[in-house]
Structure formats: C-alpha cells, structure tokens
C-alpha cells in the first residue's frame, strides 16, 4: 500500500472510487466488514457498496434493520473486540438518531478507559443538498463532529480523495467519520488502481496562488476553483486549499499560505453560523494576524433549514458566484 499523489490515467466516478476502496480494503483485511441499511442486497442506496455482497458474502456485508443506534453500537462493540468495522449511516442528517453512540461512546471510550481501547471504526455517510430532498436529507453537519475530541473527520472533494481518504480512514486505528457529498458522486477524475492512502491531517493545495487563499471543503473545492478562474480576470492569483481532513485540521499549511497571500476566505456548504469555517477563520486570524490585509471571510449556507423548492434550494447552497462576490467584497474591505 503506497501513498500516491500524482494522479493516474484511469478515471473513475466518485461513487466508483468509494466502491473500489471498500472492495480493496475488504480484500486486504478479513477483519474489515461493512454494515448499514440496504448496503448488501441492494448495494447501497447510492450504489457505493454495489457488488460487495456477491464477493464477500452476508457475514461481511451486512444489511441491518432501521436502527441506527443499534447499528453504531454494533460497530463500536465489534471495533472494541478486534474487528475493523465500516458503519454506513445513509444520510448525514440521520446522525441525530445515533448521536449518543457516536459522541458519548465511540469518541470517548478510549479516553474514559485510560487508553486501553483501540477503536478502528469508520463511519461513512452522505452529506449535502442540491437534490431537492429538503431539510432532513440535505444537511452538512460536520462541524458538530469536529467539536468532539476522539473523532477524526474527513470530507472528500472528488474521486481521488474519496478513495484515498476511505482507505486511510479504515486503516486508521481511531474512529474516523467519512463525510461524502451526494451531489458530486458522479464527478469523474483520475484514480490510481492500487489501494493508496491519503495522509490524515494533511491539507492539499489544489491550486497554488500568490495573493488570496481560499480554504474550501467537499463540493466547495470545485466551486472555489471555478471562482479562482473568474477572479483571475480581476488580476487575482488565488490559492485554493482543500483540508481533506477537517479534524485534525492542518493549520500549518493554511496559515503558511495566508502569510504569503495576506487574504483568506473559508467556504463550505454547511450553515455559515457555527460552521467549521468559523474555527478555521478564528485560527487564521489568531496565527497570521499581522499578515492579514483584510478580515478572513466565510461563505456558507444562510441561517435556515434546507428548503425543498428548487429555486430556493439553488439560492441556499453556496456556489462559485457567491465565493467570487465574497472575495471581491473582502478586497473592498482590505485595509
């Protein structure tokens, strides 16, 4: 298993990249199993586990009742007794029905037990809006989990990250939540065929730039690249950074970038108020205060549940245009 940063030739869709990661992980380690609702016979409602039942059988690819607390506890109990579970919570919006297991049990068991427990547990879920699925099937709640000591959180921005981060998550000996983004499951990109990992806790400079830094997560990485192209027209040379791992956050890479560019903005799909962007912005101004020529901006969803009606939802979800607008207003604010 190697770490490959240079993109390969072969292209895969995001959903296929997840599927390939799961397949290779289960081939390489017999203690890895997948459990979730409709992950086996149906292959996952998003298709991420298609074909796994056939190859690995019902002992290792497990359809569960609709009982997320039981499901998450199953993962915890199995992880604490020598297995390497992958627990799928279909939509991130459903974390509420197993929140105690995630936050009070999974995240804290090791510390409460004085370090004795080792919990190689991966929680896989699907976040984001844009599919007209309304308020209970469209949320991005990663900020909650980044606030919980004991958890790691990753958010892949494309197929390459989807596979590499899934491999890293499953091979890590800690509970890791993999927050995939449902609206970019069809996105295609080169993905190496071998099982590679992407180091947790290291940000990726997606687009190098010299005079503005955009830190973007998940789907907003693509939107930020589009924004960067447009802003190039303003003579702005934007650096786009994808943290890849939201917790632990690679402060160093981001702060070094801002020390170089003197301006920054954080973009995510989650609600802006109390989103992870608040933490990142706070850290940037704490550690690069004397380098900042403008306040650290933030782009996120407005303070409302995700609406169903397509035009309202379109208005709700951050995009390249809003990022461009926010960057321009920050330049206006520049001291």
């Amino acid at each position, binding site marked *: 298993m190697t770490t490959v940063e240079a993109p390969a030739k072969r292209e895969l869709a995001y959903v296929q990249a997840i599927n390939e990661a799961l397949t290779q992980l289960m081939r390489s380690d017999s203690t890895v199993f997948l459990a979730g*609702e*409709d992950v086996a*016979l*149906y292959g996952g*409602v998003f298709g991420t586990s298609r074909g796994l039942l056939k190859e690995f059988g019902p002992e290792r690819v497990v*359809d*569960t*009742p*609709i*009982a997320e*607390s*039981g499901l998450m506890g199953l993962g915890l109990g199995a992880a604490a007794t020598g297995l390497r579970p992958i627990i799928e919570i279909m939509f991130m*919006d*459903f974390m*509420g*029905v197993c929140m105690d297991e995630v936050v009070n049990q999974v995240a804290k068991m090791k510390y409460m037990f004085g370090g004795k427990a080792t919990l190689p547990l991966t929680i896989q879920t699907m976040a984001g809006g844009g*599919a*007209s*699925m*309304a*308020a*209970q*099937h469209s949320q991005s709640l990663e900020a909650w989990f980044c606030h919980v000591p004991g958890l790691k959180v990753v958010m892949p921005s494309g197929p390459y990250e989807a596979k590499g981060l899934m491999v890293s998550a499953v091979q890590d000996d800690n509970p890791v939540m993999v927050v995939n983004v449902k609206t970019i499951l069809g996105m295609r990109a080169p993905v190496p065929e071998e099982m590679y990992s992407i180091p947790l806790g290291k940000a990726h400079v997606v687009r190098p730039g010299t005079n503005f830094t955009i830190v973007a997560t998940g789907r907003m990485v693509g939107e930020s690249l589009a924004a960067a192209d447009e802003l190039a027209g303003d003579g702005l040379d934007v650096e786009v950074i994808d943290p890849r791992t939201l917790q632990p956050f690679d402060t160093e890479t981001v702060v070094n970038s801002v020390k170089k560019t003197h301006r920054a903005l954080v973009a995510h799909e989650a609600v802006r108020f109390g989103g992870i962007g608040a933490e990142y912005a706070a850290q940037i101004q704490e550690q690069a205060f004397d380098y900042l020529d403008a306040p650290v901006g933030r782009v996120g969803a*407005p*303070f*409302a*549940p995700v*609406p*169903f*009606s*397509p*035009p*309202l939802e379109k*208005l*709700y979800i951050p995009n390249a245009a809003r990022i461009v607008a926010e960057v321009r207003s920050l330049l206006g604010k520049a001291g």
Partner: protein
Amino acid sequence: MDVSRETLLDLHHRMVRIRTFEEQAGKLQESGKIPGALHLYVGEEAVASGVMAHLSNEDQITSTHRGHGHLVAKGGDFKKMYAELYGRATGYCHGKGGSMHISDLDLGMLGANGIVGAGPPIAIGAAFSNKYRHTQNVTCCFFGDGASNEGTFHEAANMAALYRLPVVFVCENNGFGEFTSQERHQAIHDIAERASGYGMPGVVVDGMDVMAVYEAAGEAIARARRGEGPTLLECKTYRFYDHVGVRGMGVVYRDDSEVVEWRKRDPLPMFEARLAETGVLSPEEALDVHARVLTEVQEAIAFAESSPYPPDEALLQDVYTVAAG
C-alpha cells in the same frame, strides 16, 4: 357490524382519491415535473382510508415519508398538495417541505416525515395534549414495519401505555423497509406481538380489506376516546411500486410473482366488487367516481403548474415565529 351506505361510499371515495392522486404524481415525477423523491402509497389505500374515516379535523395523525395517502385521506386539498410536490408557493408548505414534509395542521395532519420512526414520539405529544386539554380527540400514528425497529417507536409506545394516552399506533406492514424484507429486518412475523410488551392490546388486520381496517380502527379509536389507552394496530399490506418512485417490478429485492400475487388483492377493485355485489355502488357508478376524482386531480395539477415558485425572500422567512407587532 353494519356500516351505513354513506360510510361505504366515503371509504371508496377516499381510496379512489388516494389512488388517483398517487398514480398521477408518479407519472409527473417520471416525466421530470416533480423534483426530489416520491414514496407512493399505491396498494396501501385501505389502511389510511379505513382509519381516517373515524377521525375529525380535531383528531391528529402523524405520518411518514410515504405520507400523501395519509393527507389525502385526512381531507387534503389536491391543489395545495400537488403545488407542494411541485415546490410552488401555493403548496401546503409554500414549497419548502415537498413530498417528505407535506402537512396541514388545520386538518390535524402533523406532517409527513423524512426520518423513519420520528412520528411516534410526536404522536404521543399530541395525544398528551388532547388529554391535558380534556378533549375527546385521538391521535393516530402511522408507521411502517421498518420503523417498528427504531427505538423511537419503543419509547413512545411505552409512554403511551404508561399514561394511557389516546393514541392508536397504526403499523403499515407492507413487508419491506426500503429494500429489506420483513424477515430480513426482524425475527417476528406479527409486529402486533410487540404490544403486550408495553401493556397495550395488539391487533392484526388485513390491510387490503378496507372494511376490516375500518372496523378494527374503529374499535381502537373508540377505546382511546374512552380514555382506555393506546392500541397497536398492525395492517398487513403491500407497496405495489418501488420504495421510491414508480418502478416496482424486475427489482433485486422481491420477485415479480410476489407483486402479482398481492395485486390480485388490490384493495380498490376488491372493495368495488363488494360494493357492486351488495348493490351499494354499480361498476358504472364507480367509474363515475374515478372520473370525477381524475378531473379534480387534473385541475389541481393545472393549478400547481400555473402557480409561482416561492419568492427569494421566502428563503429566510418562517425559520422562527416573529413576535407580533
């Protein structure tokens, strides 16, 4: 139990309304006119109709992701319903909820719900309120066989029995939770068996027979109104279409033959045959009903399609109740 002609025709009318609404909704979604996910109620009409015939607008229900049938049976307005599925400002939720959150508090319909198992806790709250306010009102909680495995059902059932709340838990056992058959999600056959574990009666009824549902629901609801507490009423039924959308044959998780078998017991033709035999409603008259309802549905669809989308300002409205003045 002898049932009045009015009631029989009312039950038939409710079923026709649901069936027609859903068939058209399915077509509209397949043609790309309705966004998002639709969970159709086709095949299960006898359950909502048989229960709702006993309820007034002051009686509440909690629903599920498969909620259109419940709202229609509760007296839902086709225009506002289609407009909601279309995401228009004229919809029940002004386009903000869509299929999975369609609701009408004025009818006591406390909302379709995107979270499986979310209904039971809300239902006991409404029932608690009915009791607290010394009304005779009842709350009916619809939930699926899949939902019966969620902890929320357990907690709500225990509390309902403990407080003798006026609530009826109506389990729509259609044999599947999404794509997982009942025998693959629980080790029991009758979900009603769970009732005794809470100290409430459990009843199993043929959910394809609207009269059977009407009768059993009547007893459970009357019992609740008398202050004798909750009942778990399991209705064995079947979903003719797929979990989401219309397609439902040639799927990996069930045999077409099973669908064919269940379709032989389609609640609507079965009931219409009975109405014909007993001279309550002739086949011609039945066709009339279908035709009238279809016209209503078509008018409602036209209304929805000609309705505006919500204005941009709506995005940030109604997140909170703003103090008057």
